[in-house]
Every structure is written in C-alpha cells, then in structure tokens.
C-alpha cells in the first residue's frame, strides 16, 4: 500500500533503496548524506534487505567496490557528496567509461576549502564532465522518485546515475512523502540483466585494459554516443513512472512558462521557491515563469532553448562557481544552448547559496525585478550575487 509519511529527504532515499533491495551497497558516511547510510544499515541489520553491505573505509574505496560489484553483474548503489565525491573523482570517470550502471545519491554539499558541510552544487557540478547522468530533485518526493527511476535509467543506458538533492534543505527537511508500495517499486525497477559480467565464466573478459594512442580516442568516441539513448531513457522512464505512480517526469520542468516574459532557471530546492514566487508575481499581473532543469546530464539543450528562446529576459541561478570563468556552469551551458539555437535572449547570471547561504523569497523577487530591466537594457556582463554581504 502506498503511504504518505513525514520523512526527511535522506530517509526517503533510504526507503527507496530498501524497496529496491540492491545486490550490493558499498558506502562511507559524510554529512549531510549520513542518514542514508545509517538508515540503510538498520535495514541490513534487521534483515529487511538482502543487500551485501560493504562498510568501506573511504569514499574512493566505496566507488571502487561498487565498480567491482557492478562489473561482477550486481545491481549496485551508494551515496556521498562534497569531499567524498571529490575523493572518488578518478573512479567517477572510470565507472562511466566502464559503462557500469551504479546509482549514487548525492546530498549536494559545498566542496572544501574552506570546509563547509552545507548545501551548494559545487560537488556534482565539479564532475559534470565525467559522464554520469545527473538528476536534480527539488524536494524529498523527487529525491525518492528520482532514485527509483535512476535504476531503470542507469540499466537501460548502461551509464551510472547521480541522484542529486540539496544537502540539509532536502536531505534533512521533513516533508510529506508518498512512499509507494514495496511490490510496486520492485515491479517498476524489475530484474537486472547485466550487459557483461566477470562471473560469466564461460565468457571470460578483460575489463580496463591499457588503451593506447591507437585505440583510446575511438573508445571515448563510442562513450560519447551513449548520451543520445540516455536522454531518451530519461524521458521514457519518466513517462512510465507517471503511468505507474501518477507523477510524470521529463528532462526539464517548465512552470508558467508558455507565455512568460521573464524566466528564472534553477536546479534543486530553489526551483521550488522560484515557482512560489513566480505564481505570486503572476497574481500581480507579471508574466513570470520558471524553468527547472531536472536532468543536467545529458544536457537538454534543445528543450532549454525551446523553453527560453521566446522570453524577453532570462535569469540563470548557479549554486556553484566556476572559478576563473565569468559565470557559473548552468549559465554557461544554458547560454551556449541558446546560442546554438540562434536565440537572442538577454540572460543574466546569478551566483547564490554557496555553503548553505539561504536564498529567500525576496531574493527571487529581486531577480524578477532585475529581469524587467534586463528586458530593456540587456544582460549584465558580470555575475550578480544573491544574499551576499558586500
């Protein structure tokens, strides 16, 4: 029976993991992901899952063990964030290039230095080149829903998936979460049939050979080809999830955008706040809308350009900086997509929320106010900051 429960984001994610009951989980705790691992350990110790749980001694070993397990044909999950993700950085690339469908939840947290355990997107944005599919959830319900879909997406695409959700704001905030029926979730994810396995003794394979100048380039080219099908899988699985559970998902989520003049682009929990503000401003007669990016990888450039090209002004909010570049990663990729589509929309870039700095309704109202000006005088040449003490 589906139940509506008051759950923190981490708890909702752990519940999804319990329902999926993966073959192997190898994980290491790091704030604010810790409750995922702790809750899951309870399930293991109470015999509620059959999972082989490997309490590794570091995040690098966590993903290494996941890779070993996935290569041996198992359905594998883990979770981390921030410096834990940074510590496993080389393995992040390797998991993707070995085409292993590892599913990893990321309770987005700021990368050190300095050390800060709170929310921003510097961790997952920092490895956006590595080849993982990246989904960003707005709230606990999405963190839960995305995890379940991630398993199907990963296995169909033969690519690992990051299930990202805001550290503390989502990981630790209690919300009403619709927990679907155990059997229904199991049916949705289905059985896993690996493309290859080390345990297939009749067909011994060598995984991870030395790949020199004469072959590496072609192999990376084939890796690049994986993302078209991955895109399709995200769409297809999102549709099927809707059919099974009543909540559909796509690559992006437009909100009041069809006739909007002013659009705000955001990922994660801030998109939720933005939707509230846009709706509020609509009641005042302003034509505001929001584009939430759910799948940041593979980057849905066409959908984004399509949603934004007819706006009068666009604001892109980045919750991480690209040091040495004038704007953050989301801004850079959105404007690049608009350029490719030949769309001449002024786009203002904002940096917000680093290290868990709150973004408040009044900040987002200001963004829309700014956009009124941007629509007439053009976009500022530099990043603006929200909630920063100058």
């Amino acid at each position, binding site marked *: 029976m589906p139940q509506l429960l008051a759950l923190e984001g981490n708890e909702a994610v752990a519940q999804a993991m319990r329902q999926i009951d993966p*073959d*192997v989980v*190898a994980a290491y705790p790091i704030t604010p992901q810790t409750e995922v691992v702790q809750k899951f350990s309870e399930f293991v110790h109470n015999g509620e899952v*059959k*999972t*082989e749980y*490997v*309490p*590794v*001694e*570091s995040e*690098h*070993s*966590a993903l*290494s*063990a*996941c*890779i*070993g*397990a*996935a*290569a*041996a*044909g*198992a359905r*594998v999950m883990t979770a981390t964030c921030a410096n834990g993700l940074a510590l496993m950085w*080389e*393995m992040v690339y*390797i998991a993707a290039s*070995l085409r292993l469908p590892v599913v990893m939840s990321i309770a987005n947290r700021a990368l050190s230095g300095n050390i800060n355990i709170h929310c921003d997107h510097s961790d997952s944005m920092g490895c956006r080149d590595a080849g993982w599919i990246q989904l960003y959830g707005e709230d606990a319900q999405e963190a839960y829903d995305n995890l379940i879909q991630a398993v199907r997406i990963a296995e169909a695409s033969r690519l690992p998936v990051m299930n990202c959700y805001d550290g503390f704001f989502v990981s630790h905030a209690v919300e009403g979460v619709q927990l679907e029926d155990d059997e229904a979730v199991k049916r949705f994810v289905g059985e896993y049939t690996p493309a290859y396995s*080390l*345990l*297939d*003794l009749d067909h*011994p*394979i*060598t*995984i*991870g*050979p*030395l*790949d*020199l100048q004469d*072959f590496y380039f072609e192999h990376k080219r084939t890796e690049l080809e994986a993302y078209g099908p991955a895109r399709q899988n995200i769409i297809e699985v999102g549709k099927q999830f809707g059919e099974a559970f009543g909540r559909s998902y796509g690559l992006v989520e437009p909100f009041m955008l069809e006739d909007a003049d002013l659009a705000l682009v955001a990922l994660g929990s801030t998109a939720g706040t933005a939707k509230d503000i846009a709706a509020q401003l609509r009641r005042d007669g302003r034509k505001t809308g929001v584009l939430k990016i759910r799948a940041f990888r593979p980057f849905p450039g066409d959908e984004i350009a399509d949603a934004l090209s007819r706006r009068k002004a666009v604001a892109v909010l980045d919750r991480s900086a690209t040091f040495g570049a004038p704007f953050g990663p989301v801004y850079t990729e959105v404007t690049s997509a608009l350029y490719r589509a030949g769309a001449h929309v002024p786009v203002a870039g904002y940096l917000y929320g680093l290290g868990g700095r709150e973004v408040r309704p009044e900040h987002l109202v200001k963004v829309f106010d700014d956009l009124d000006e941007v629509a007439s005088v053009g976009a500022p040449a530099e990043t603006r900051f929200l909630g920063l003490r100058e």
Partner: protein
Amino acid sequence: MATIKELVKREDRITGGHRLCGGCGAPIIVRHILLATESPVVTTCATGCLEVATTIYPYTAWKVPWIHSAFENAAATISGMVAAYRALKRAGKVSQDIKFLAFGGDGGTYDIGIQALSGALERGHDFLYVCYNNEAYMNTGVQRSGATPLHGATTTSPVGSVIPGKPQNRKNLTEIVAAHDAPYVAQASAGNFRDLNKKAEKAFAIEGPCFINVLSPCPLGWICDSSKTVEICKLAADTCFWPLYEVEHGEYRLTYKPREKKPVEEYLKTQGRFRHILRDESKKLLQELQDEVDRQWERLLKKCGEA
C-alpha cells in the same frame, strides 16, 4: 597438496605473448598462483607492470575473468566483486564456487594501496591478495617505494654525492598484514616455485582474506642478469634478506631455513642497485644493511619458535 605431477597437467590460465621483460618475476608468480587451484578464478589487478604488460588493447594474456580499475584499489575492487558474488549466489544467479584473486605490485600494495588493503582485511572478505614485490615503482621508471630496501638505489632515491640511495628502511608489510589477524599470511619468492605454490594452495583453501608477499626480481630496476631470477631469489632466502615463512591463524612457521646463513653481500653483489654499498668506502652502509637483516631475522626466528 597437489604434487608436481598433478600440477604439470593443469592448464595455464595466463598465456605467453604478454610484454613483461625477460626474467621478470611477475609472470612466474602469476602462473604458479593460478596453478595452485583447480577452481574457477576471477581476478583483479592494480595498475602496474603486470596489468599494463598483459592487457594492451586489443590483446590480453588472461584466460580468467579480469578487471583493472585503478592503482590504489585492488583490495577495494575485489571487496565489491566478492560482495556481488555472495549476493548473486544467494539469489541463485550464480552456482559455481569461485575463487577471488587480487594482484598488486609493491606500489599498489605497500603505499598507495595500503588503505584499501587494510580495510578489506578488517572487513574479512574471502579473497587472496598477492603482492608481486619488486621493491620499487617499476612500471613508471624505478621510483622508490615503501618496499625499497635501505640504501637501495632508485630513480627517486638515487646514489648521490650526499645521500647514497634510500635513507629509510623498508616497511614490513607481511607483518602489518599479520597484525590484522588475517587467517593466512605468507612471504614467498618467484624463485622457489614449490614453496609459492604450496602457500597459494593453502591460501585458496582458507576462508577469509589471505595474503602472500612474493619477492619478484626486476632485471631492469635491480640491474641484474635476467637469466638469474631464480638464483637471485634463492640468495635472498639464503642471506635472510627475504625470509620464506607463513602465519596460519596466527601461528608462525618458517618454511625455509638456510642451512648456512650467508652474508648479505652475496645477495647484494648480484644487483647493480646495491653496487655503491659494496665499495670499500661504503663498509658502514653495508654493515647497516647486514644489521637490519639480522635484526629482522632474529625477530622472525623468535616468532617461529626457532630462536
């Protein structure tokens, strides 16, 4: 214990045609480890000479399923492999009994790989880890490792006018692993096949994390004759520079005791990496090395009840 007659009938599970140097201890070690069990074996290798020289795409020398993921994580990779095996066996998706085997050089085991090894030992996964120890980071050009002996010359501990080779003693990784209470820990060499093979057979049969540290001469890095691999290993044992022993469920046993303990000079003079110690003006360095070998040997004899 399988007899030699039985062993020679078994099929080799690593082929020729790989690019390891003539005289390299590593492929000898791999062959004898793989011959020590008739069970199916699934393997992982850390980055290093063995991995690189046996799997240059599109070729592979391995007839067993094999994965290389990275340098410091053979023990973590195999932990995941074993976990998957247990899960899938329990789910009825895998029926055979499979042995899990990890190879790492001293680089990937003593130094960058020690964390992963320690974690895997503490968690108690059922696998055999074999360190092919050529006492330096050979694959990248003979840089010093934690296994490089005192005063050994390497490219990052060269014989200079001020510092003659490596100023630090080597780690005793075999003892570090034994201190983890691993059920079977051993030291062997590429030159004593029977001893190595017996140890591997024992290790494969013992449940839990087993470890064999195997001396593996490197003609290039050690600057020695590539036809003298076996002889050099025998001298390592006879001078007690590399004792052959095992620790089975905490019980120490010497598996080879030299009838006559030879001075360490006999071993050092076979290799150019120690040439500087054998000069007349370096008597002090030679003595330091002899004292260190003696100290470790006495300690080991006591543990083995042979003092």
